[in-house]
């Protein structure tokens, strides 16, 4: 730290970032589908080799993909269509488990919780990450360089350990909250209570992820061609205008990426509430989030069919939410 070298990302500038300076490779890539295809037809036999080599490179991953993703998904779908009863054995119920799930108050309240949680946690995380990234990008000092690393630190911490750490801080017996609020003569808030657990969890998640999102946004900001700022300054734009009108629009793809990933992650919320459950006895029920409910059904009650149906229904909800989100932002093309 402190060396000027470390301040810059160690990679060559990526061709696709800057539309005003297209490099040779980019030009070739863009017209690849037409010209390369023709060139290949002319070469004849070479094409067969290309098919073969392509599959040789992609094949090993393809096998893992089939075995660890497609097969479990298919199996989950299959399992979710059956029901095991104490009397009468296993019977085919088609969508029966899904009808049960979507009328099950525990599942529905879990879904409602993660949706509400996403609506608060994601904008909060991204706002903090964006503010930090803009500051670290605009102000170059030893302190901002230090902050960049420190803020990122929680990402290196397993979410479980993060939850354990915050569990200590919230704790009445050895957390600092009693002392701190005691200074002002106020009672310490109990983040394990029914009213505050929502905010307690929001805080853990924000602490865990904001730094990671900040690094992604910061990397995107560093990719912007600084001559754009120069041009804007000549036109009389101030610092705030440059940030709002140039920087934020140009990193929109990165913002969208982290929005999508945080949405996928938050809807599957499991680790933090599962860990804090031990400390917040009674506040966090086993069916607190859909994933916890699926876990309880499968491993607590050995009800694998219903557990699979819940997992699958949750996967479906995530899929629909993400697609709806991408549809409304109309950025599908630029993301993929």
């Amino acid at each position, binding site marked *: 730290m402190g060396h000027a070298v470390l301040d810059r990302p160690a990679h060559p500038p990526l061709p696709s970032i800057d539309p005003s300076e297209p490099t040779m490779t980019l030009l070739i890539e863009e017209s690849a589908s037409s010209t390369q295809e023709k060139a290949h037809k002319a070469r004849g036999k070479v094409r067969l080799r290309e098919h073969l080599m392509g599959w040789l*490179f992609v094949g*090993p991953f393809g096998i893992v993909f089939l075995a660890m993703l497609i097969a479990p998904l298919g199996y989950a779908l299959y399992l979710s269509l059956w029901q095991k009863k104490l009397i009468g054995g296993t019977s085919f119920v088609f969508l029966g488990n899904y009808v049960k799930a979507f009328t099950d108050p525990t599942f529905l309240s879990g879904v409602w919780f993660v949706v509400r949680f996403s609506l608060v946690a994601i904008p909060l995380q991204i706002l903090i990450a964006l503010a930090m990234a803009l500051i670290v990008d605009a102000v170059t000092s030893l302190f901002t360089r230090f902050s960049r690393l420190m803020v990122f630190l929680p990402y290196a911490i397993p979410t479980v350990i993060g939850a354990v750490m915050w569990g200590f801080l919230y704790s009445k017996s050895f957390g600092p909250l009693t002392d701190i609020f005691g200074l002002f003569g106020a009672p310490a808030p109990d983040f394990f209570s029914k009213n505050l657990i929502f905010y307690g969890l929001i805080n853990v998640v924000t602490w865990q992820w904001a730094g990671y999102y900040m690094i992604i946004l910061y990397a995107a900001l560093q990719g912007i061609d*600084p001559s754009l700022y120069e041009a804007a300054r000549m036109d009389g734009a101030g610092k705030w205008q440059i940030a709002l009108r140039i920087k934020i629009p140009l990193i929109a793809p990165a913002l969208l990426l982290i929005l999508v990933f945080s949405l996928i992650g938050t809807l599957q919320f499991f680790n933090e509430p599962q860990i804090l459950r031990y400390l917040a006895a009674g506040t966090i029920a086993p069916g607190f989030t859909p994933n916890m409910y699926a876990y309880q059904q499968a491993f607590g009650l050995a009800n694998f069919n219903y557990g699979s149906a819940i997992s699958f229904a949750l996967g479906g909800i995530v899929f629909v939410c993400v697609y709806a989100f991408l549809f409304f932002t109309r950025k599908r093309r630029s993301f993929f």
Partner: protein
Amino acid sequence: MTGSSSAGARRRPQRHLPLQIFLGFLVVYFLVPFWWVIVNSSKDAPGLFGGSNTLWFADQVDYFGNIQRLFTYDGGIYGRWILNSTLYAFAGGIGATILAVMAGYGFAKYRFAGRRFSFSILLGALMVPATALVIPTFMMFSGLGLTNTIWAVILPSLLNPFGVYLMHVYARDAVPDEILDAARVDGAGELRTFLQVAFPLMRPAVVTVLLLSAVASWNNYFLPLAMLSDNRLFPVTVGLGLWQGIASANNSGSTSLWSLIILGALVSVIPLVIAFFTLQRHWRGGLSVGGLR
């Protein structure tokens, strides 16, 4: 204007005191849990529960005693958990990275039949929640007799669709076709072209994918929690979760376990923090790829 001269323009020293103070508050917020853990892992059980000063050291600082207790408790099970985590992180991380680098390069540089179709399936898979796969994978593995073995944790962590996507984007932009063609003209086979020409150019992204998948394996909780029942196979995340459950369940009898959990949390974090700091020049370059386009 070229890139090299414009880089200097941004380096102009700028001091925005209010912004830096705001940033300072955020840094304190992000560091408080670490500080608490560092301070309190030096205390023994009475110091932990009886001491009033929770954000400062107690009278006697006893790191060594606590470390000794941590690594000898229950037959040294904690050390085993750390070794397990290391094994899972290395095996899963390296395996997933090799697969992702090859597949990303294949998608970027070969126009083979079915490429478009399989790539769009891959993009769809980015949105499949990983935890949705845990229960069915468990059922599959239990049919094969693989549950409660190390393979139950390693095999699923070989899957990293995002790594493939990242490598694809990077290989497409950073490895020019002309260089590959030149190598082929010079008589290098496809494999040699990949290993000696393309691979060095892809290195920043390779380090990023390796680090991200190793961290994902190290951090994994749901999968090992579901798959493993023998606590000698647990990774450190599941192990500490277990201890916390025990310590919370009988509050009075297991106060000594709390100080082990606190120190255990601290020790388990150190390898990752070191990895991130020492490798930061490499992964920062690669991280920018996924977000840009």
